[in-house]
Every structure is written in C-alpha cells, then in structure tokens.
C-alpha cells in the first residue's frame, strides 16, 4: 500500500482536547494552530495544500456542541452542527437550511461557519448574517483569556481567537431572504437576514457582499420604507465580482432582498 500522507501527519502535531479548558490551553496564543471544527473547509484546504498545519486543534471531543436556552437567551456551542439550527425560527433556521447539503450541514459547525476565512473563489460563512441580525455575542479565547463581545467585533479577529460559542436573545420577529441556489452545492451569492428584538430594535445584515457578513445600518435607519431601505443598503456594502455573481448583479439584487426581509418582518409583527 502507498505510504500516503503519513509524513504530513508526523509533521503535524494533532491536539484533541477533551474539554473547553483543555481546548483553551491547547489553543494558547493561536500561533501556528489550525483549528478544526467540523473540518469541511479545513480538510480540503489541507488536501489541496492551501493551508499547512504545524499544530491541528481538533475540537470534536471538547464538549463544545449543543444549544441551550435559558429564559429568552439562546446559547449555541461552537461545535454545534449547522443542521441542528435548521428548524429554528427565522432568520437562523432558513439561513442554516440554505447551507450546503444535509451531509455537509451535519458535519460543518456553527463555529466553523462563523470563522470561515474569506473564500478563495466564493464567499462562505452564510450564518454570519443571521447571527449579526440577531445581535449575537461571541465568546472566545486567546492566551487563556476568555471574553465575550458583539459578533461584529469578533468577526475581524476570528483568525486570532478560539470561538467557544455564540448567544443571543430570541427575537420578536425574524426574516431571511437569499438568492435561490440552483444546486445545493452552491454557496449563496447574496443573502439578507433581519430580526426585530423584543425591545423593538431592528437589525439587518448581509452575506455575500464582501469578505464576511456585515450589518446594514443605513438600511436599518430607513426601514420604515422598505424600498428606500433597499436602496440605502447599497451605502453599507462594497459588492465584488466572484465566481458566483458579479458586483453589478449583487448591486441590483441587494435592495430587493432587503425589501423582502422588511416586508416579511412587517407581516410577522
């Protein structure tokens, strides 16, 4: 039998923590550590040599999966499979259902989705918009220090920290609108999530308009008039060309998706 990639494995230190504390310790300052969540992005990256792993931190046994609800506060562990969100209310449920196919959703995790690096040819991290719209906070660690901060603040640092979980308050209403995918393997070219908190706060966010999910503050400010809000959303993004769609197309479609989300939120309110 061919010796296959034994050499890589020998050169890679594989860390398999058995608890959250062990995971935090193993992550250390994160230098040279490749975190493996479900592995649906990391493994192809390693196979195709787009990424090298000196140390691989495999989170599968660290007990970081699960959804907990305390009162109206929902906490989702980083290792929770995307598939487990599918039946949750909008924007999370429909957004999760739009990720990949059943097999990949069952293995890919919430943390891996939120921490996905910018794609090589396509955007990834579809759940970002849903969690941003929910005003989620992210609990993460580096150098043994655990902090909780708004997801928006965490996303730019996601390569330097170990995500442990996200939490949010159940919204009063939520909505999701994404471009149809011709095939379950397509990443969603563009999607918008919206949620209204029990205190009346409205949040809108998009994925597919840049390197990662973004809030749409201008659209939020104009939300009373969904059509105007749709146009205003264009001020919050700088759409790009990629394999999935052109910047031009995204510019045309974003206002439509924003309008749909706002209309749906109105209906459900």
């Amino acid at each position, binding site marked *: *039998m*061919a010796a*296959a*990639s*034994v050499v*890589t*494995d*020998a050169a*890679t230190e*594989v860390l*398999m923590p058995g608890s959250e504390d062990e995971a935090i310790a193993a992550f250390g300052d994160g230098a040279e550590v490749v975190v*493996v969540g*479900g*592995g*649906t992005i990391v*493994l*192809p990256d*390693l*196979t*195709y040599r787009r990424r090298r*792993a000196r140390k*691989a931190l*495999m989170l*599968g046994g660290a007990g970081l999966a699960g959804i907990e609800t305390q009162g109206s506060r929902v906490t989702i562990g980083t290792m929770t499979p995307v598939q487990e969100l599918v039946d949750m209310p909008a924007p999370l449920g429909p957004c999760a259902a739009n990720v*990949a*196919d*059943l*097999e*990949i959703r*069952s*293995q890919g995790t919430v943390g891996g989705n939120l921490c996905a690096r910018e794609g090589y040819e396509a955007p990834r991290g579809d759940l970002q918009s849903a969690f941003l719209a929910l005003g989620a906070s992210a609990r993460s660690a580096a150098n043994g220090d655990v902090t909780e901060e708004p997801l928006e603040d965490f996303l730019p640092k996601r390569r330097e920290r170990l995500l442990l979980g996200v939490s949010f308050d159940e919204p009063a209403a939520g909505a999701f609108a994404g471009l149809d995918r011709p*095939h*379950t*393997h397509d990443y969603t070219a563009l999607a918008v999530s919206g949620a209204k908190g029990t205190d009346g706060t409205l949040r809108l966010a998009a994925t597919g308009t840049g390197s990662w999910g973004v809030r749409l503050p201008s659209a939020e400010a104009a939300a009373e008039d969904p059509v105007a809000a749709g146009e205003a959303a264009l001020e919050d993004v700088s759409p790009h060309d990629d394999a999935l769609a052109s910047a031009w197309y995204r510019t045309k479609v974003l206002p439509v998706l924003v309008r749909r989300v706002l209309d749906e939120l109105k209906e459900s309110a």
Partner: protein
Amino acid sequence: MNLTVNGITHGVDGRELATLLDVLREDIGVTGPKAGCHQGGCGACTVLVDGEPRRSCLLPAGYADGTEITTVEGLGTPEKLAPIQQAFVHHYAAQCGFCTSGMMLAAHAYIDRGGTDDHDAIQQALGGHVCRCTGYSKIIDAVAAAARGDSFDLTTTAVGKYTTMATGGGE
C-alpha cells in the same frame, strides 16, 4: 484510533487529521468510497458513520474513532443485495458506476430515516451527489422504488455471471 468498517475493527495510528476517505482507501484498503473531488463537491466518497451519511473526504478520520462505518461493500453482497442495490440494478441507475456507492449510501440512509418515494424529497436527500452519466432520473426512480418497498425480479441478472475488467473480463 479504532475504526469499525463493515463490522471489522481496524486500529489505525497517526492518521487523525487525514481524511476518512484516504484512511479507508489507503490504510484499510476499502475502495468502495471514491475520490471524485476531495473537497465535498461530488458525493462519490459518502459513507455511513453510525448510520448517518457523511462525506468521507471532509471528515477527519479522528472524528470517526470508535464509530461503525458502512461502505458500499457492507450494504450487501452479490448473493444478497440490499433493496437499494437491487433497485439500482433494476432501474439501470448505475452507468459508469463511479458515483454509485455514494449515491446508494445516501439513499439507503434516506430510506432508513423514513424517506418516501416523493421525488422532491429524494432530490433534496441526494442533492449533494453528482452523476454525469444518467441525468439522475433513473437514480431517482430507483430510490423511489426502494423507498416504496417494490420487489425486484433480478432473475435475468443471474448473480456471479457479472464480473469486471480486473477480475478477469466478461462472462
């Protein structure tokens, strides 16, 4: 780590980060799962891990430690084909055959979790599996037939008569 593949337990060391696909094919020598893309895009490598379909090219082998893995070789034998295998033969759902094992395992799991012969539901369940030969309709017909519990008369496909290139050629 210990991987139980089609009922036989194998100890494999130092391969936690390798894909389950490579470990099955190269370390254990089970070649039913195919390396079609090594990036989750085609479904030819799908196996059942504790009964659930997974892309073995995306799954770090370390995550399969202690699980029961079923590949196409574990579904049934030529003498005793599983219903989904009979359905694929009967409906000509395998043409070149390269996507077939992944297709059948995903279909088998679909039927196992109560899937019906509804075409849309079948398309959803197999949505991540690519076939370039059949145009899918025969595959969907086969899965629907197996889901309904149709019985298949395979007497015209006498077992043992059909061998392939590497096992010595035609009949």
